[in-house]
């Protein structure tokens, strides 16, 4: 694709049960600002069924155009082909998506199809001299990296919580239904979809997360984490050792091989602060850590560090919060 005719920002907005995920909406708001500054448009792409309502939300978040493509199940190769075709047709200069598992799955393939580069884990996008510059944390956030992409379009997967969502009810936009034929592209056949988790845990969208680590000691004590989360109207997170000990299901894992989260408040209880964990929660707004070891690395990134025994501190916290809430 040539540079000259590429303009506008295309955003793939992932939906779950016909509802757009926050990650995509946050990106739309950011894209709106970037595009407006260039006098260009934001084109949202939604794939699924019954998406009219979601399309309106996308417009409120910043989309000028919303492209709806009807498809039932998620199939990587189909989604990838759809986005590639749409990119070829609409010729955006930038393609964005939230860096969820799905986003990370399909974006690199779309980039590969268009022979261009893809930045992942992007936490900031700036427009410098007509180039988009992507800031990404590397080595678990110990270092930041500014990337530019020479190819067109630039493709980037954005880390959840990087941008703030703003829904403006008055905003208007155009909804376009596209038929994208992608016969015979599917080589990996989905034979079955298993909803293995009884509860769905939406860590990525949570405002408050209370996480527990090995320092919680045992399954009974881990209940304290759950209680505290409940009291703060938050969601339970965990480190890998807590999951391996089966104190809590795998869907709660935060970190490199778990979920990347960015709540406003993150309370880490009995967590040492290993890079693999920290890289998943470093984007949190305010980090509170409770650890008995004052040299624990978690304190390096915490806004407030409480040096103390979780088994003593956490129940007091719960009690205090409950007391104040009942006033």
């Amino acid at each position: 694709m040539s540079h000259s005719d590429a303009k506008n920002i295309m955003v793939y907005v992932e939906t779950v049960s016909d509802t757009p995920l926050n990650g995509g909406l946050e990106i739309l708001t950011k894209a709106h600002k970037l595009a407006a500054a260039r006098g260009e448009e934001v084109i949202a792409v939604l794939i699924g069924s019954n998406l009219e309502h979601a399309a309106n939300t996308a417009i409120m978040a910043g989309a000028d155009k919303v492209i709806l493509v009807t498809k039932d199940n998620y199939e990587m190769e189909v989604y990838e082909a759809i986005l590639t075709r749409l990119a070829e047709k609409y010729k955006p200069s930038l393609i964005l998506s939230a860096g969820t598992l799905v986003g990370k799955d399909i974006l690199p393939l779309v980039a590969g199809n268009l022979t261009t580069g893809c930045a992942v884990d992007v936490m900031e996008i700036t427009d410098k001299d007509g180039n988009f510059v992507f800031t990404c944390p590397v080595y678990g956030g110990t270092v930041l990296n500014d990337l530019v992409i020479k190819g067109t379009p630039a493709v980037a997967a954005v880390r959840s919580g990087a941008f703030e969502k703003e829904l403006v009810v008055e905003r208007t936009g155009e909804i376009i239904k596209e038929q994208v034929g992608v016969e015979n592209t599917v080589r990996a056949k989905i034979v079955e979809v298993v909803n293995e988790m009884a509860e769905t845990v939406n860590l990525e969208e949570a405002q408050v997360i209370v996480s527990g680590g090995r320092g919680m000691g045992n399954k009974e004590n881990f209940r304290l984490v759950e209680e505290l989360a409940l009291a703060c109207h938050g969601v339970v997170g965990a480190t890998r050792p807590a999951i391996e000990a089966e104190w809590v299901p795998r869907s709660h894992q935060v970190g490199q091989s778990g979920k990347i989260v960015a709540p406003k408040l993150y309370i880490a209880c009995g967590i040492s602060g290993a890079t693999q964990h920290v890289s998943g929660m470093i984007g949190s707004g305010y980090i509170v850590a409770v650890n008995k070891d004052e040299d624990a690395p978690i304190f390096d990134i915490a806004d407030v560090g409480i040096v103390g025994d979780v088994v003593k501190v956490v129940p007091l916290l719960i009690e205090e919060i409950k007391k104040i809430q009942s006033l």
Partner: protein
Amino acid sequence: MKILVCIKQVPDSNKVEVDPVTGVLKRDGAASKMNPYDLYAIETALRIKEKTGGMVDVISMGPPQAMQVIKEAFSMGADHGTLLSDRRFGGADVLATSYTLAQGIKSMGEYDLILCGKQTTDGDTAQVGPEIAEWLNLPSVSNVVSIRMFEEDGITVDMDLPDEVEVAKVKFPCLLAVDKDIFQPRLPSYVKKTETKDRKIQILTLDDMTDQDELNYGLNGSPTQVQKIFPPETNDKKEIWNGSGDMLAKKLFDKVEELKFV
């Protein structure tokens, strides 16, 4: 069954610092190791070989010292190793890395199954596997957490998605990127290490590739370019609280309330 596993050498520690003046990355020593996720890929390959027979080869792209990880793969049980090493491969991003690996794989012959780790602990883009598959025009499945069924002509696997697991069936040849915990990786065996001490590692350079155009490799072939590397703003507003439990709890609650989180 011919299986190829892609393995990468990564720094042993993620403790890095940026020189504030030059902006150059200072790595804590030069110690390096095999990308932990690739151990799961090797283990998966070895388990399949134990069932069906055949062979397990490994391939890595990197500087000459990356031979270490190939040797480690030998001591786990891999049969042959190839290293793609050439100064002209340096500075590669995902596109150039996957292209180079795909070129290398083409020159090595046909494989029924190519295995990758899900991601690395340094670049951590989780993109290389799926892109190799694109270059080789193979079906691929990422986030593979377990193998359901192994048949003559294909494999059925569980793919981990955020709130569900999809069961995918793919025909050989194909590429799978495996998640941790698919199988517990075995430790390298001392006996195998001694046995394979002198085993030759095939080294391929740009001259061995079908595509000889330098512009498609390394920094030249990389649309993604690092402009600068810098340390994040440090958190200097940090507070550390010591003291008795109830005081701390109260203080924390006040703080949290002040910031309107609850």
